[in-house]
């Protein structure tokens, strides 16, 4: 079983990303479970969401304390939130970052400029770039999830109007992600 924690800000779509991930996983025969963490729910506030992926039905319901993968949607979040809290040794970090990034040693980093990709595809809502679908593309690379399944899930989840360009953003992120060990 893979346990994933998403860090984002309210309004960035971390919860939606976790939900789409469940759908994509189902398409390749994996069972997924996604749930948000409920704290102060407000646009802009740091939020967390969780997902579990497994070959069989996920039965456990407790919080994820030691994630295998941490996904960070906002490059500035590591300054105010301990995004590495509890991550397993040798764990994976999928980071939205405009350029180079340096995090703690002993982790594997998948770096992608999801903000730029989102803006390039016109994915903006109320002035905010919607980075969640691009970051899913990078995550797919990190956990060996076929990008076609992710694209299909995105299109189905978001509908024919905005789905396709979000799927393209995911694919671009999948291609452009830089792996740093």
């Amino acid at each position, binding site marked *: 079983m893979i346990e994933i924690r998403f860090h984002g800000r309210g309004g960035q779509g971390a919860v939606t990303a976790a939900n789409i991930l*469940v759908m994509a996983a189902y398409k390749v025969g994996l069972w997924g479970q996604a749930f948000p963490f409920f704290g102060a729910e407000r646009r802009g506030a740091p939020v967390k969401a969780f997902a579990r992926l497994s070959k069989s039905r996920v039965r*456990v319901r407790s919080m994820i304390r030691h994630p295998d993968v941490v996904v960070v949607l906002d490059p500035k979040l590591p300054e105010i939130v301990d995004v590495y809290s509890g991550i397993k040794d040798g764990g994976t970090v999928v980071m939205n970052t405009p350029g180079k990034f340096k995090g703690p040693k002993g982790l594997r980093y998948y770096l992608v400029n999801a903000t730029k990709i989102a803006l390039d595809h016109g994915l903006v809502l109320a002035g905010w770039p919607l980075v969640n679908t691009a970051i899913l593309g990078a995550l797919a690379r990190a956990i060996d999830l076929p990008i076609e399944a992710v694209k299909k899930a995105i299109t189905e*989840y978001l509908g024919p109007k905005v789905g396709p360009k979000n799927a393209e953003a995911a694919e671009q992120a999948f291609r452009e992600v830089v792996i740093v060990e």
Partner: protein
Amino acid sequence: MAVRPLTGNYAVAWGARLSRVKVVAAYPITPQTTIVEKLAQFIESGEMDAKMIRVESEHSALAATFGAAAGGVRAFTATSSHGLMYMHEMLWWTAGARIPVVMAVATRTMGPPWNIWTDHSDIMGQRDTGWLVMMAEHNQEVLDMTIQMFKITEDPRVFLPGIVGLDAFILSHTTEPVDIPEQELVDSFLPPRRQPYVFKAGDPLIMGNIPSSLEENMKMRWDIHRSMEEAKKVIQKVDAEWERLTGRGYGGLTECYRCSDAQYLVAGIGAWVGDMREAVDYLREEFGVKIGVLKVRFVRPFPREDILKWASSVKAIAVFDRSVSPGSAGPLFLDIAAHLMASGTMLPIKDLLAGLTGVDVTYEDIANALLRFVSEVEEMGTVKQPIEWYFGR
């Protein structure tokens, strides 16, 4: 059929929609709100032919649902926690009037202090009202049981309202794949609504007037009890029929996981039964403990016969309660202990009060508590402390 990622709350909404509910009356409360929001969306978009009644309180929400149902239509509501307490009086009226209604309860602890997380204080507080009460383990069961509950409650042997319970957040707001059955399949499963009487314009009826005989009044209470006993058969039958149609059956009132050779049982209700399954697999693999999970699906009617059957071949039972009757013990423990004793089945039984007020409980927590319980029984033949508070590690 289509599998989609659904939260527990959306699974409830789909269940109500597929059951062709005609009236929804509700008042918002976390963590229930998204059930009714989704239903409002279905109604607004024309995907569901129903009327949404906005009310000023939960008391009115159930009163309106009850009123619509008494008028002859399938009616639905949903609530949680303090909202359910505010409804409590109307729960007695609905059951006493013998009007089938289905309600979803996204179980949430009671204040003070203000707290939105899951425990079973709210739903277990409704055990004596005459409603059928069930708790689901996962979102598929939530959807399936919303549909099943209409069929069960509208059976002439039952004619009582029913609650489908789902744990706050760990089901209500958790997304997992759910198979949404076709409308035609549900239509073939659910017969047209039946109920003991219908209020109609021009045909006056009085419900709830002062009884002419108190003995007659007491018989009404007895009849509810008798119908609850009958409901056990109906629950089994309806579940078996659902299994034939969809391939998904849940064992009726209870399911016992890895029980055929079990020497110990752990009993519980709701979503953490999944964590108990994980704990039991772990204890069997790592420690060779022969233990099974007794999943109690229905709290009312209480599955006395099933529990006696599962308990007949084990050494001891541990019960996890996510609510407590202060000054006594956890309600699930009390029911199980009482019915075992009354039937002459004497075995050590331990109440583990855990996860109250939403405290996170992992399968490791459950396994640890069970290991201690098993070793006590192995060493002493009994448990040191029959009622124990488990605050986690």
